[in-house]
């Protein structure tokens, strides 16, 4: 079967999709596994999806990431209560990354996905809704709640005193 454009799509978009997967899963290895699973799925279905592969990839990433969370066996997500908000070194990218990942892990999966797609990928609301299979209103409320929690967690850590909130 002809898969015109598949290789080019993978080369051009795999880094961007890996970034989404990374923030959805919070784990580098899991993100790579997730991305490979989705790309393999797309390889098989390329004839039907190659008109809008990016949208398909986002939807598949979110679905599979959500299924992974469900399969954890209802283990509670890391809560905010135990979150360490000690001030990091702002020049340390590792600290930023770990802080962001920890903050995202504190969000329910749908809020997490809404925030990642809306603010990392800068998608319009209706495209986030398509990826999450929900209404535009639900996306807005999930993104707003997620954003509020991220601000609460990240604000004291990443924004210098006096910085804009």
């Amino acid at each position, binding site marked *: 079967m002809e898969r015109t454009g598949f*290789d080019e799509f*993978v080369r051009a978009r795999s880094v961007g999709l890996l970034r989404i997967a990374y923030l959805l899963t919070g784990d580098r290895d899991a993100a790579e596994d997730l991305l490979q699973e989705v*790309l393999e799925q797309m*390889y098989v279905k390329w004839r039907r999806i190659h008109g809008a592969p990016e949208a398909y990839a986002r939807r598949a990433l979110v*679905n599979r990431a959500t299924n992974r969370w469900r399969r954890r066996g209802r283990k509670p997500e890391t809560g905010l209560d135990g979150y360490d908000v000690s001030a990091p070194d702002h020049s340390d990218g590792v600290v930023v990354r770990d802080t962001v990942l920890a903050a995202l892990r504190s969000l329910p999966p749908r809020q997490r996905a809404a*925030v990642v797609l809306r603010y990392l990928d800068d998608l319009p609301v209706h*495209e986030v809704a*398509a990826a999450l299979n929900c*209404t535009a209103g639900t996306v807005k409320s999930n993104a707003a709640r997620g954003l509020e929690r991220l601000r609460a967690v990240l604000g004291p850590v990443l924004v210098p005193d006096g910085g804009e909130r």
Partner: protein
Amino acid sequence: MTETQIREVLDRATGDLSVRPDLLDRVRAGGRRRVIRRRAVLAGGLAVLAAGAAVPLSARGRSGNDLETAGDLAGDPQFRARVRAAWATAMLGFATEGEPLIRWAGRTPAGPVAVVQQASPVAGGTLWAEGFVHAGRGLGPVHLSRWREGSPMAVLLGPRRDVLVVWDAGNTVSLSAGHTVDAAGKVRRDWERIGPVHGGVLVRTVAPQAGDVRLGLREDGNWDESVPLANYEEVVPASQENRTPTRVERWLPGRDRAWPADLTQAELDTWDLSFRPDYNDNLGFHPFTGHFRWIVRGAAPDGRRLVVQILELGDRRRVFWMIGTPDRPHYAGELDDRYATGLPRQTTLVHIRLPEQIGVLVSAPAATLRYRAGAGPWLPVNGDTALLPAAASRVEVTPRGGNPVPVALV
């Protein structure tokens, strides 16, 4: 923090990511394996289904605007209005383009049904959502049954799920009423070509499928593809369970003797029955309750290659082994008390006595094992999976965080 600052920290947190250089090669290799192992693809498709998937308009090669409605209710304005209303409700929150297209509207033994499609613009293209709208018995409220990507697609309706509605989308589609497992452990199906039909929709009364879908649907093409059941999770509620996935993939000591280091993936795959369509029911429907994979590779004492594999088929798990050649897999029957013992802490010991005095394969993921032969001393086992000597008569399993449990090896 402003939204801009949120964007910046998300960007910084992921800024140093890069993909492995061999990603494309691995994806292509994995994709080719998935083409064969359609079951895994079906599982992924079901996950997508739940999200309300769609297919690209451009991929379908037509605009659809000039398409007319087929079916015996095509001229019923009241029904069409109800279908459009139900569809609009289901599409709330999605960007849509133009009016929904009712491709087919007609009566079925389970009530009126319509096949609907609608374009949904996204960045870089246009998606094409499609699905069934089912009015139920006695012209009850119209509701969207399910919708998903791809064509063809099918839905099972009626309280006993015995009314099959297939949208063939102009493709050749075949139906299998059921499957059997033969003495070799292979899945057998007989196929009947049912499409394409005029109007695109075929309605067939089938044996009740509620809770256990026995039928199979196949789209015939360059290779056989399964046809998705749009409401599979409603027909088989067990498919919505989220069991912990089983993954046991082990190499036994002695690998170097039988398996050369430069063995290609393709050759390795010939020793994996999950890649063979006649062992996996790729075109049937089975509950997806987590990825199941159980395969142990190693060598027999005389150096021949040895593979022991458990293949899942719905609730059935079939035990196979291959010794020396992948051409004649031995089917040892279903996994039952002969081969598996449940232990505390959700641990299961698999114990399979192999022929020709090859030994006893034991495996208990994440557990500590030791064994003895008759009244001999307890001997340690390296790892949680091992090929014990044929003389082994007992194995002691210590689940992680648990107490030792002795198990007799028959």
